[in-house]
């Protein structure tokens, strides 16, 4: 167990290192000049050079990269556009010259939105996706089965921006059934937090639920015929209880793995959903940063997204091992 966690942590560190390197490299291949953008359209060549120097962009690429890594581990001092030093404690993800704040702060400001959105959407995916999949499998071949499977398929075939805007128009603006989607901090008012995010949760969850519903259904159907389910019924257990206790557990492993990937993706930001509902989360921050050539923010958000994917995939493997004692963590 300890060995597993250590090995997984080392693996994660290697993956993240490779991703920072790739993000750095890719970004420098892009033609735009961050110094020019940071300085603004009215700067002359001299001013741009000064800005370039204070941003550290005149250093060789390798040097900038090692500086970045050192900041990540030990913190560092960064020069603002005008040269004033800014203290950036570890883990320092750099300083955004467009937002005029350390990247970590920029992420920290928006992370609660993404966290709330992702957690709610995952809950919807679990209930709607896995739930309907299980229910459809238990009533396989019936009208309920076809209805449930068809319903989740609608989610897979509809685009978030269409469904999001359409539902927002229908449920919020013309009928007033739902409150206007907005983010209210959970700590301040849990009620407002939940009602404000309800529609985004449903939309984001519904659109992603179909894959889970289909997988859950097929896994259940496969596991239903396992010998141990029959044995449970042979003991005198009712079919429904046997399926809930044994079939569901046998079907759970691939679902846990897929859910891990999905969670990793959602915690890295959901740009389209955030845009549709006007929520400022990590997804929006990342896309804005790319558009504005804000290198530190781009690398920071990419790193964050990768971190969550690596984390949740490892967690999913752990869950699979807990579900099934035959699985050995490697």
């Amino acid at each position, binding site marked *: 167990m300890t060995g597993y966690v250590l090995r997984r942590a080392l693996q994660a560190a290697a993956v993240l290192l490779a991703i920072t390197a790739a993000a750095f490299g890719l970004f420098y291949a892009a033609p735009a000049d961050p110094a020019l953008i940071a300085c603004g359209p009215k700067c002359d060549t001299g001013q741009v050079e000064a800005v370039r120097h204070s941003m550290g962009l005149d250093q060789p690429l390798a040097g900038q990269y090692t500086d970045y890594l050192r900041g990540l581990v030990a913190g560092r001092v960064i020069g603002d556009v005008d040269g004033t030093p800014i203290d950036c404690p570890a883990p320092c993800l750099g300083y955004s010259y467009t937002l005029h704040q350390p990247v970590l702060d920029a992420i920290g400001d928006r992370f609660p939105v993404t966290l709330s959105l992702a957690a709610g959407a995952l809950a919807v995916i679990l209930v709607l996706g896995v739930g309907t999949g299980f229910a459809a499998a238990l009533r396989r071949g019936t009208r309920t089965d076809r209805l449930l499977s068809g319903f989740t398929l609608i989610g897979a075939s509809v685009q978030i921006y269409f469904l999001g805007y359409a539902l927002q128009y229908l449920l919020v603006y013309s009928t007033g059934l739902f409150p206007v989607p907005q983010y209210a901090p959970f700590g301040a008012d849990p009620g407002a937090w939940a009602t404000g995010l309800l529609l985004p949760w449903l939309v984001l969850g519904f659109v992603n639920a179909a894959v889970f519903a289909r997988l859950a259904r097929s896994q259940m159907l496969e596991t239903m015929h396992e010998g141990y389910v*029959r044995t449970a019924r042979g003991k005198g257990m009712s079919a429904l209880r046997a399926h809930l206790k044994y079939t569901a557990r046998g079907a759970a492993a691939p679902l846990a793995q897929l859910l891990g990937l999905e969670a990793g993706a959602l915690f890295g930001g959901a740009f389209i959903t955030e845009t549709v509902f006007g929520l400022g989360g990590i997804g929006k921050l990342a896309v804005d940063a790319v558009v504005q050539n804000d290198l530190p923010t781009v690398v920071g958000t990419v790193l964050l997204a990768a971190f969550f994917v690596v984390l949740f995939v490892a967690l999913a493997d752990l869950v699979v091992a807990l579900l099934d004692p035959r699985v050995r963590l490697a």
Partner: protein
Amino acid sequence: MSAVLRVRDLTVSFPGRGSAGAVTAVDGVSFDLARGEVLGLVGESGSGKSTVGLAAMGLHDAARTRVSGSVRVGGTEVVGAPESEVRALRGARIAMVFQDALAALSPFHGVGEQLAEAFRIHHAGASRHEARDAAVSMLERVGIPAARARDHPHQFSGGMRQRVMIAMALINAPDVLVADEPTTALDARVQRQVLELLEELRQESGTAVVLVTHDVGVVAGTCDRMLVMRGGRVVEEGPTARLMTAAEHPYTRALIGATPSMDSVPGTRLATVDGVPAAARWDAPARPAGTRTLAEVVDLRVEFPGRRRGVFGRHEPVRAVRGVSLRVAAGETLALVGESGSGKSTTARVLAGLRRPTGGEVRFDGRDISRAAVDARLRREIGREVQLVFQDPYASLNPRRTIEEIVGTPLRVHTALDAGERRERVAGLLRQVGLDPAHLGRYPHEFSGGQRQRVGIARALASRPRLIIADEPVSALDVSVQAQVLNLLMDLREELGLSLLFVSHDLAVVRHLCDRVAVMRAGTIVESGPRDEVFDDPKAPYTRELLAAAM
């Protein structure tokens, strides 16, 4: 005499989908089971014997099965009864032991917990504590120490798992136990232990047993009465002793004669169910002892990477084969005998050039072939001379290829024949193994298990090899089909002068077919020699144990 299980005119059919007609799996079966009696339900696959067991438990898939007739457990009717009534019987009055305990036990829960669950379902008032005590004492009764109650099924051996299964079925002291092939997946020694345990428990508790099996030998040793089934109907019924010696129905006689026993004359043709009497070659010709070595391994060692220890720990290797030396002479049939996990299949795979040995020499016709598994050209050259026949005729044929393609593949690889010539050769091969050449264009699923194994043998013969390695080629087959395939192998060996390496755990089959025998255990050869020497005068204690279990 009151019957604890009374089956009358039981008929089970699966209504077909669309154009496919209904399949009748069980057709008008009737029998009584008296208190404490052991009844053998014997038949080959597809005879409906397992379906009878499932229907008695009411465990068939209600949506896809039609059941009529009557099954009464004690006094309670099962057929057509509401699920809640049948559920009260299941696990309490009638319980079942399934064939494959590894599949039938939950992999997610400790064995003690699984027993306790069976107890609690029928003892509504029992506390967790009582249930656990009941589970532990039942486990101890079948020889599993209380300390292992928390272990999971995969941590037990096959025999231990079947003991758990039996303990679980008997925890509520049922009147009837349906045991569906309870020992088929086990090695002979373990099979004997499990059957003895079952008999002991039966005498203690008075539980009547329906033993569903294809193995006439098992029935002969355990059952008072037997019921022979074929195609869903009862062919013959009577006391075991009478049926074993003087069965009236030819099918029963064939079924009994189809299994080579430890007393049958080696090399003789075996009776088959389709009316071929045990005839033809009466006295087995004395097979000439081969002198020239065709294939051999010397001090063979094979290791598999095992589990890793610690963060950067090394993989602890599993030593599957530890210094094995053996040789196959030209024209000779050598048996490699051992229980599962003894390393016999691994040794065979090395000789076939499919696995690279960790150490030792591997030679075919004097040539070093130890690198065949990693050297594609060498592997191809060896493939022409050495061919394999596999255990599972379902898994070893590609379901998406026609028989012509399957059997013709070795010809495409190893010969320069054109398509027409290949077709000619394939047709000839099919004739040779007793299949109709008109079936060239068919797919594997259109054939029965025995026919598929013939296809597998035809494929192995295609490149005209000198050595055929057969890894448990008849273990997955029904007894009558097994007889056909063994007969075929004996004919072909005679006709083509083939050398045969026959890997098997079945001593009776080995005794019938092979010239020399090597006995493997835990990666080493404990004894080897001519057949009669090993069987009549075994030197190693382990060989004696194996022989005792097979008797």
